Every structure is written in C-alpha cells, then in structure tokens.
C-alpha cells in the first residue's frame, strides 16, 4: 500500500498543533519562561538602577536580554520533549518532507516567544511607566524573534543530541545570534526614542538580512542535523 504524504503546509500545521497541544496541557514551558523573564527584569532593575533617566537608554537592551535568556529555556525544552520517548524518531519515520519538521518546530518556538514577549511588554510598561506599544518596536520584536528562533531551532536540535545538552545551547547560540541582537537593540531604542525612520533603516535591513540568511541556512542544514 502506498502511503500518501500530507502536503507541505499540512505537515507543518500538524507539528505546530502538536506542540501547542502539549504546551496547553502542561503549561510547563510557558510558565517557566514567563517567571524567568520577570526575574531577569527584576535583576536588571537592581543591577542597572533603572531610574527615570537611565531607563530611556537601556530599556531596549533590558528587553532584548530578557527575551534572549528566556528564549533559550523554551528552545531547550521544545527539543527535549522530542528526545523523550524517542518522539523525534517517530517524526522522522513520518512520510513527510523533513524540512517541515524544522518549520513546524520553528513556528512553535516563535509562537511561545511571542507569548512571553506580549506579556513582558505590558508588565515592563506598568513597572517603569513607559509606553512600549509602538508599532515600530513590535515590528522589530517580530523580526528579531524570527531570526533568534530560526537559528535557535536548528542549534537546539543539535544541542539536544549532545551529551552536554542544555549546557551547550546558550554557548552555541549566543555568539551567532549577536548580530541580530545588536541590530534589534539599536532599532528598538531608535523607535523608542522617536528617531526618524531613515536612521533606523540600516539596523532593520540588517535584521531582515540576518533572518533570510539564517532561514536559508537552517533549511539547508536541518536534514544534516537530524539524519540518523
């Protein structure tokens, strides 16, 4: 009997849906990420003495550091659940294009990052009395998180297969994600301080270039990373 493969989009959707369902039932990862994000902000508050004057300059940096740290928790967890009970082997046996596994996991990771970000932003706004609901900033957050999750999903699926596992992910991820973080911080602080768009464009362009390069490379490499 010939097994009919579901379409490209249908497989991505199935994998994404599976991750959402798992998370919905346990809510382990999201609650850990969220509490962690709040803790990071709390620590920055005392580390940097976020008084009214300092706040304007460092808000973008604090936000991105928070997202980056909380993001590694989610990435580690999202691949660890595939390793438990050899769930990944099951996915590999499915008659689907393997890159759909990558895109499914990527969308899941991205979604969880967005949820954490959407909750962090208003909390930060309330705590420090700054208005963070700025269309430009939201655009930067979407682009920056996409780049972060694109390379993070690939590296997490590598790290999870190593002996050192969750120890390894931040070490692998942070040096290669620096350009995205630098560009995202610059663009975010540009939008927050009301800079004219022409001065923010170089950072935004770099961020878009980073996203495209990383998506392309991850698409190419994912097969090599999960082949058994």
């Amino acid at each position, binding site marked *: 009997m010939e097994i009919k493969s579901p379409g490209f989009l249908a497989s991505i959707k199935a994998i994404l849906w599976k991750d959402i369902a798992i998370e919905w039932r346990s809510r382990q990862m999201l609650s850990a990420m969220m509490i962690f994000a709040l803790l990071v902000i709390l620590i920055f508050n005392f580390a940097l003495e976020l008084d009214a004057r300092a706040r304007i300059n460092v808000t973008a940096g604090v936000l991105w550091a928070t997202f980056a740290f909380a993001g590694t928790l989610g990435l580690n967890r999202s691949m660890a659940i595939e390793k438990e009970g050899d769930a990944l082997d099951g996915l590999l046996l499915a008659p689907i294009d393997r890159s759909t596994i990558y895109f499914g996991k990527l969308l899941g990771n991205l979604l969880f990052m967005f949820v954490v970000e959407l909750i962090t932003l208003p909390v930060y706004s309330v705590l420090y009395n700054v208005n963070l609901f700025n269309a430009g900033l939201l655009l930067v957050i979407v682009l920056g998180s996409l780049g972060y999750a694109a*390379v993070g999903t*690939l*590296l997490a699926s*590598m*790290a999870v*297969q*190593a*002996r*050192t*596992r969750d*120890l*390894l992910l931040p*070490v*692998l991820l*942070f*040096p*290669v994600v*620096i*350009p*995205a973080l*630098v*560009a995202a911080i*610059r663009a975010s602080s540009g939008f927050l301080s009301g800079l004219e768009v022409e001065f923010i464009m*170089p*950072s935004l362009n*770099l961020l878009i*270039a*980073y996203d495209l*390069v990383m998506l392309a*490379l991850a698409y190419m*490499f994912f097969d*090599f*990373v999960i*082949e058994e």
Partner: protein
Amino acid sequence: MKNDYLDETPQLLKVLNWISVLLLLIASWMVFFYAPLEAVMGQVQRVFYFHVAAGWLGMAAFFVAVVAGIAYLIRRTAKWDVLGVAAVELGLIYMFVNIVSGSIWARPAWNSWWTWDPRLVTATVMELVYLAYLMLRQGIEEPERRARFGAVYAILGFATVPLTFFSIRIWRTIHPVVIGSGDAGAKGSFEMTSTMLQTFMFSLATFTVLGIVLLWHRYRLGKLEAQVEEMRMEALDY
C-alpha cells in the same frame, strides 16, 4: 582497517619546517632592524607587522574550516573533518595572537586596551564561535555525528561574521585602515614607507608559510587521533 599509525614525515614537510624557522628569523629581524621607526607611535608600531599577519592567517584558517565543512557534508570522508578541526584550532590561536597584539598596540595608540570597534568585536565574536565549536565537538562521542555537527556549525558561524561586523559598524569605527582608504575618524593610521611595505609583505608571506606548516602537522596529528579513537572503539566492542 589500515593501522599504519603515523606514516613517515613527508620530505616536503621536513624542508618546510626549516624554511619556516628561517623565514620567522628573517621576518623578526626585518621588523626590528630593517623597517624604520614610525614617527608618531614609535617602537610600538612594530607590532603592526605580525598583528595583521596573524589576523589574516586567522581569517584564512576559519575559511579553510568552512571549505572543509562543506567538503565533509558532500563527501562524508573523515579526512575533511580532521582538516576542519585542525584549521579551527589554529585559527583560534592566530586570532588570539591578533587580538592580544592589537591590545598591546592600542594601549599607547588609543590610550585604552580595548574599544568596541567593529573589527575588535568581530574578531572576538569569531573567537567565541569557534570555542563553541570545540565545546560542541567535546559533547558528542559518536565520530560521524560529531563531524556532521561540527561542519554545520563551522559554516553557520562563519556566515554570521560579516553580519556581526556590519551590525557593529553602524557605530563609527576608530580602527585604522592602513591598506586602502581609511575612515576619517580612524586613530593611529600611518603611511607605509617602501621598507615598511617590504617588511609587511615579508611578514605576511612568512605567516602564510608557517600557517601551512602548522596546519599540515595538526592534520597529521588529527589523523593519528582518529586512529586511536577507532582502536579504542574496537577494543570496547570486544
């Protein structure tokens, strides 16, 4: 399986060993005695010759690692992996020499050991990427998977290098560009005289030869390592 341990050192490599020693001696002599004293910065400018040569070699070594990585992913033969690790380890050392010698120069020239200039940051981030590469390899026992992941990470890491550079570049740079046109804000730039240029070119050539010799040695060592590992695996199987 072929258990030839380490085959005889090739004749060419033996000759190159001595040539590189000789070249290094001549290059050091040129740096200290042949090249003139730079008018503004004085003796410390002499760091420049080996500083740039080491940086060039570091970049070249990481590039070799990328080529080896691509070749490994296509061919899947262990020798490309051995070449990749060899290149990364050497690249780490050259880049370290580059960063430290630059720092020694920067103290008198910029009045600070360190600035957050694109070149400095890029060199450092590159160093971190390839340290992470070594950590990744340490975490994986199975040789084939280790080689595969290593190749992927070496290529991915190198692809981010220009992006890192441009992301920092958005700030103005103060690093001098001695060859080609420099930034107006660069500090510590100078015009090379012809003897300076000769010394510089000679240092580049010397470091290139030295780089090839060391890479070759490290490659042979890597092959020996692979044999040892293979024998250990076999012994464990019994």
